């Protein structure tokens, strides 16, 4: 579905990602792990269009998409969540979800004045979708709360909820479990599996919680110092001495 070919990104003298090559298979939940500073989020940012690669290709469904802006990636079906929740703080939880879907006639300002009927029809659909997503996440009671007032874990759920408002093909989750309590973590895990089954999403997950990775992901890609160290199942990753080395610092101070 997505293949990353010799992807590189430099910030001045620092090469955050270099010659990174891997594939994400359709229908998989691919894990992306590695020590801090391995280039995981930078890779995500390039796939999601937030950063332009210094070199290399990102091929999504046969098309090289490297360097396209974020909003275009969204319309191709690549949707991301953020490590630190990026909620729309002053908007209600329901609005946070309703703002996401594409093809809203009301986003063209003149339609609101000249064709309110079409706007209302779509608006009712979008609201229903948002209500369903809130039900699915069991946060319906927070519907009219300002998103900025939610707890850290609830904001994480809202991040996931936004991906449900799209026709995503590939969902990039950046540390969905960070700062989330164990009960909520189970919930998030269940959600990801359900979304794959019910909606056919393909996932790529960055995560430091190895239990979550073990429970969800196959295959797992290990990044270290900006490049792919290995790819395989959890057992293979666990038994690979290089991975341990990378995490413990391989001669350098562990980050």
């Amino acid at each position, binding site marked *: 579905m997505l293949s990353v070919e010799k992807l590189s990104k430099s910030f001045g003298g620092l090469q955050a990602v270099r010659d990174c090559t891997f594939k994400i298979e359709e229908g998989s939940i691919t894990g992306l792990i590695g020590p801090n500073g391995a280039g995981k989020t930078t890779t995500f940012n390039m796939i999601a269009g937030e950063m332009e690669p210094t070199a290399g290709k990102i091929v999504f469904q046969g098309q090289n998409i490297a360097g396209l802006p974020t909003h275009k990636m969204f319309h191709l079906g690549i949707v991301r969540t953020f490590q630190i929740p990026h909620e729309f703080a*002053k908007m*209600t939880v329901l609005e946070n979800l*309703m*703002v996401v879907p594409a093809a809203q006639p009301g986003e063209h300002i003149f339609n609101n*004045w000249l064709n309110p009927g079409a706007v209302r029809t779509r608006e009712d659909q979008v*609201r229903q979708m948002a209500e369903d997503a809130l039900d699915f996440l069991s946060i319906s009671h927070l519907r009219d709360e300002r998103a900025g007032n939610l707890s850290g874990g609830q904001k994480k759920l809202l991040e996931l909820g936004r991906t449900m408002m799209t026709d995503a093909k590939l969902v990039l989750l950046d540390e969905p479990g960070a700062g989330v309590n164990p009960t909520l973590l189970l919930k998030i895990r269940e959600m990801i599996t359900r979304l794959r089954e019910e909606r056919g999403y393909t996932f790529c997950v960055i995560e430091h919680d190895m239990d979550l990775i073990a429970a969800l992901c196959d295959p797992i890609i290990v990044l270290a110092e900006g490049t792919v160290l290995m790819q395989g199942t959890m057992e293979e990753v666990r038994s690979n001495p290089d991975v341990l080395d990378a995490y413990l610092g391989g001669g350098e101070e562990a980050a």
Partner: protein
Amino acid sequence: MDPVLYGYMLYGISLLTVGGMYAILALGLNVQWGFTGLFNAGIAGFFGIGAYTAAILTTNPHASHVGGLQMPYIVSAITAMLVAGIIAFLVGKVCLKLRSDYLAIATIGIAEIFRLIVNNETWATNGPRGISQIPRPFEGLPEPINQVAFLGVVLLTLAGVYWLMEIARKSPWGRVMTAIRDNETSAKAAGKNVETFRMEGFVIGCMIMALAGALMAHYLKFVNPQTTDPLLATFIVFVMLVIGGSANNKGAILGAFLVWTLWSASEIVAPRLLEAIGMTDAGIRSAYVRIFLIGLLLQIFLQKNPQGLLPETRPSSPGKNGS
């Protein structure tokens, strides 16, 4: 009628008329600053573009300036908005990629450029002496009917702008604008073309400002470079919006009328205050004291009500929790 009472009535009408025009300006700024966080510090420029366009289009031909086309008011008002919209688009193309504080600097620059042009291009604008004898709707009617009728025009325009902007605020378009204000990265990740939406907000806001400028030109019957004085056409509009409540259209209107009333009253109160404490040259000094007082008012007020008199509300969404 008792002449004193009659004087008060005329004062009241003028207060409401100018307040109404400021309310339109504040609604324009609200689209930019309130809805989507664009720091336009060049309101005076777009206000001035509106005022000069209306002046040039509706006056009688005169040797001292271009135009004098004697066009109907409605044509001149629409043209004023279109001209401002086109200029806003060009300015936006260059400036909207800048981060908020740089946008403020750039827009101040644009407004100053406009002021210098009208000041120096005497062949077109009659320079510092300005354009006079601008017609005003209903001026042929006897006083005070003519003043009341013009007030009616202003309030109807205000009501129209409010109605359109209230629909816009509650619409999916307004929702995207707020999303961009709250978190630009996330709005992009939700597939929104942030630059396009920003441009729309900027252009619409500037067109509304130009409409207020056109009304002001007809009301004063005179425009000169002083009309685009940043104090009275940029700074005070921000004070109005912030005190009234950013992102709240009702707040913008309330703030405009309130601050204009206070500002207007300070013209009478400030010199007397200075005389009372025995200061010499009270008349000259009071002009500066007024600016000081309005700044002080903003400071004190914001300490108590950082969200303004009418804080932002979100449009209620019908559904199972009711609302």
